């Protein structure tokens, strides 16, 4: 690099550039918060859904599954499992009985633990997954298999 370009010039460009783009990021974040209500299905974010999210977290489901494509890649995507397993015609029932039936126990097959959830907790986690399936994800995943 040329001599006329001094370290202090480089430093000033660094601070200026960083501050500028950090502010731009904050502005975009602010804008995002304005857009979210039209996409994040918040009208249906009930107490039950919030309780379901807590079940999701305290059983560390994300340690095996993805949710909207984020998490671990060991087990199926669950952002759209409600729709994949019947939607309003059976999605909730499927999710509840699936969780109750674990572990499947087939030798050599990947196993999901038994969490001993109560009927109320099962309803909550199912409500959470239904809620997530109705978030506007710009058409992701590409098909129902997730």
């Amino acid at each position, binding site marked *: 690099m040329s001599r006329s370009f001094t370290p202090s010039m480089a430093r000033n460009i660094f601070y200026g550039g*960083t501050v500028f783009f950090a502010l731009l990021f904050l502005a*975009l974040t602010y804008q995002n918060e304005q857009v979210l209500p039209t996409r*994040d299905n918040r009208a249906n974010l009930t107490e039950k859904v919030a309780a379901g999210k807590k079940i*999701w977290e305290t059983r560390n489901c994300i340690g095996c599954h993805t949710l909207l494509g984020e998490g671990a890649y*060991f087990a199926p995507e669950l952002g759209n499992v409600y729709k994949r397993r019947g939607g309003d015609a059976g999605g909730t029932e499927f999710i509840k009985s699936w969780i109750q039936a674990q572990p499947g126990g087939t030798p050599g*097959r*990947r196993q999901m633990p038994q969490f001993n959830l109560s009927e109320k907790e099962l309803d909550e986690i199912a409500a959470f997954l239904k809620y997530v399936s109705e*978030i506007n994800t710009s058409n*992701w995943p590409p098909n129902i298999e*997730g």
Partner: protein
Amino acid sequence: MQFQSQAVSRFYFTAAIGLFVAQILFGLVMGLQYVIGDFLFPAIPFNVARMVHTNALIVWLLMGFMGAAYYLVPEESETELYSPKLAIALFWIFLVAAALTVLGYLFVPYASLAEWTGNDLLATMGREFLEQPLPTKLGIVIVAIGFLFNITMTVLKGRKTAISTVLLLGLWGLAVFFLFSFYNPDNIARDKYYWWFVVHLWVEGVWELILAAILAFVLIKVTGVDREVIDKWLYVIITMALVSGIIGTGHHFYWIGSAEYWQWWGSVFSAMEPIPFFAMTVFAFNMVNRRRREHPNRAATLWALGTGVMAFLGAGVWGFLHTLAPVNYYTHGSQVTAAHGHMAFYGAYVMVVITMISYAMPLIRGRAANSSKAQVLEMWSFWLMTVAMVFITLFLTAAGILQVWLQRVSATPLPFMATQDQIGLFYWLREGAGVVFLVGLVIYIASFFYNGGEEKTAA
């Protein structure tokens, strides 16, 4: 070693390597569970192994960064560390907290762990990489504050250099962005959005400052190149990193309910993120070619050059591969992601920490460099681990492409589990490469104990 107090970094480096071993062992457990699904079930379910694997990684990298800072800052500042006692006390707090957390993961059901540790007061657990119980998260904050106080005071009382300034900025940023881990709204779309303020703004933001500063420090030491030249490079690199990386966060916002404009902002800015990584490689080779001395520690030079190349491949090339929204639409949350995550973490942050350890440990142990036989061993471990990681990445990429094809592109898409059965071969190959990685790691550790007949200065 110019200052006595630099020796505290030895604690951090030793513990870091110990946790590195734990990380890899649990990685191998998971790798087996990928193909033998019920391996160790229900004793160690996959999600538990994964928490240990990723959290051990994060904690040992943090330990490595701290150790690096305790070594680097006194030397740059030309003064003793403000408080070596504080550094040692914080080390034990951090180590005990990390050990208790791992034991908690392994022996307590996660839901009970959450209940016992106050997750009902403030729910922060159960999110990827941020699984730590509340007391552990608070412990991290306390250790970070004490650490930042210590090194900031050291910098303030001594010489201020570009390297120590950039390192400090990176470390402060690391602590500040970690605070977002305490924010967990009920709204999952918002939760996910701010979660990335920790994860992305760490690895593609402030950690790059830490990376560049450590690399610059070691390069000055082993090449003797003029500081003025290195300072300019340093600022140019970190400018490009933050200018591209901050808005580049948008590459995670495409499909999680956030605004659609992120597909443009995220694609355009993150497409520029490889530039600083490329610049780092050019910088490293450039400095070594212009070297003014032949430093006896050839292993450290090798690690420094390797960091540049592998960070560029893992973060730059493999990041670019899936960062454009139309590509990410198909690869999002697949084995392609895992492939990139592995090579990027290894190439950038694992390797830079090892670079620092490689340079500093011999000096802490009272010699400019290890015996040439010990260095040969270390270089073997470099090649074994690095080549193994290249293969892990290639196998996972192959698995990922097939997965995307079978499950997401095909006209008759297979379900997830059926797809996994189809690509099992690549998971076996990955596990094989993982074993080679472990062999490399064992040889790396052996190199510390091998002195090839020279007197042992270790205490």
